[in-house]
């Protein structure tokens, strides 16, 4: 389980995260959603220790996360795009990551499901985007971490591989582990997520179960509910003057009748 407590982050004048407090519970898939630039990536980077918060605390499995980074043993990370050195073989990349985490129990379910044996001698530079994404997924799920952070996990995967990955995510949830997933494909999140955390302009606007979100917004699907939250957010910002109002046609403007020159 991870707990974020009043996380703040500022890049220059831009306040990217403002007092974000969130708990990702074990045995649940939490969808982190929000419009572009809402702070999702920064929040994930703070959990991973890639970016340091200006304020607040992060606890992973009850332990305070520190700069030493040992807490990251509890985390498996799948970035949005897989960029490995192009002249390494797939086997080199997998070996490197597994040797960086010695003594951890290896889970090779996904490696077998994605037939990594068939590509392990190929250079990364010769792989298709989808195959690289499979390598990316295999690395994230390799060590049975208690928290998995997946950034757009099915982007670039074919339907069969995407299905395999989703089944793996459900299996991980069934084992009582936590999954934090971001995606812009709401249908995908709907089929996976138990909880939703909605970020907008660096503030956590909603955190709770999918059922609570649907009840809260009156939406019939996750997509409806998130769209409703985003519309509400926009209208609130407009009312306080943060956004310009809707464009209204001036009274002198009228459609020309057909045939008019």
């Amino acid at each position, binding site marked *: 389980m991870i707990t974020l407590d009043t996380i703040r982050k500022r890049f220059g004048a831009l306040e990217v995260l403002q007092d974000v407090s969130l708990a990702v519970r074990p045995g649940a898939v939490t969808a982190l959603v929000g419009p572009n630039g809402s702070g999702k990536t920064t929040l994930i980077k703070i959990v991973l220790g890639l970016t*340091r918060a200006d304020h607040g605390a992060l606890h992973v499995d009850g332990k305070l996360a520190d700069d030493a*980074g040992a807490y990251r043993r509890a985390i498996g990370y799948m970035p949005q795009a897989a960029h490995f050195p192009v002249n390494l073989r797939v086997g080199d990349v997998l070996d490197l990551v597994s040797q960086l*985490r010695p003594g951890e129990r290896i889970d090779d379910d996904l490696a077998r499901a994605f037939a990594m044996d068939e590509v392990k001698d190929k250079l990364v530079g010769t792989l298709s985007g989808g195959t690289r994404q499979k390598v990316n997924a295999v690395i994230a799920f390799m060590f049975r971490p208690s928290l998995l952070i997946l950034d757009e996990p099915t982007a670039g995967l074919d339907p069969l591989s995407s299905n395999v990955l989703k089944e793996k995510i459900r299996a991980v949830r069934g084992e009582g582990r936590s999954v934090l997933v971001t995606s812009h494909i709401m249908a995908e999140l709907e089929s996976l997520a138990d909880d939703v955390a909605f970020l907008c302009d660096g503030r956590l606007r909603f955190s709770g179960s999918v059922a609570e979100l649907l009840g809260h917004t009156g939406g019939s699907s996750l997509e409806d509910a998130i769209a409703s939250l985003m519309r509400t957010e926009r209208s609130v910002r407009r009312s306080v003057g943060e956004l310009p109002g809707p464009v209204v046609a001036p009274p002198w403007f009228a459609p020309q009748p057909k045939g008019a020159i």
Partner: protein
Amino acid sequence: MNVVSLVLQAGLRDLSRNRWIVAYTLCFLGIAEGLFWFGGTGPQVLLSLLNLVLLVLPLVALVFGTIHVYASREFVELLLAQPVPRRQLFTGLYLGLALPLAGAFVLGAGIPFAVHAREGASLGGVVALLCAGVGLSLAFAAIATWIALRTDDRLKGIGLALGAWLAATVVYDGLVLGAAAAFGNYPLERPLLALMLANPVDVARVLVLTQLDVSALMGYTGALFERTFGTVLGTGVAAAALIIWCAVPLGLAERRFTRRDF
């Protein structure tokens, strides 16, 4: 195995298959062998190669190094997400860049001298050339790493790398000559010696030339340097200056890597 050696091994594996590194090795091999082939004696080849080394090594280390660090950014983020200390990861990544660059030069320039060992090049001169080349590769790879870690804009980073190369190889010498001409009536020996140590390219030049009996080729600062320090002390001072030129940018790059947000 520790993090440094694991990341270093991956870097060596990656760059040993890199076509630019292979071409760089073959380029030095071809040029050195060509110089011998067209009738050059050992000392002549050494001096010709020195001029090439002083121009090409900093350029390749800066531009290739900067591009490589930018290209590795996402992979570095993946490695940083593992339970590894940042400092060890940085050391492995830096050595994984700098050692293949230095190794490519040593192979490319060293093999022809080994093959033509009987053609008069002094062992001290060849060793000094190879050491100067390794020092320049390590120093400019560290500067490239520092530039790429300081600037997120890739175009700006590559521009800065090219600017650093131009400054170290062309502009600096011009400024020193201009200063020497403008203040010719003053005793300039000590300031000029200090200025020479402030440029790694000049330091590498003097390191090699102190091993050869060619003081006429050293230029004003080089001749002054040998007269002030003598050959043995001069070599030691130049080698120490080159080590400092590796250590300072490396320290700055490491500090940046361990503190910055990715």
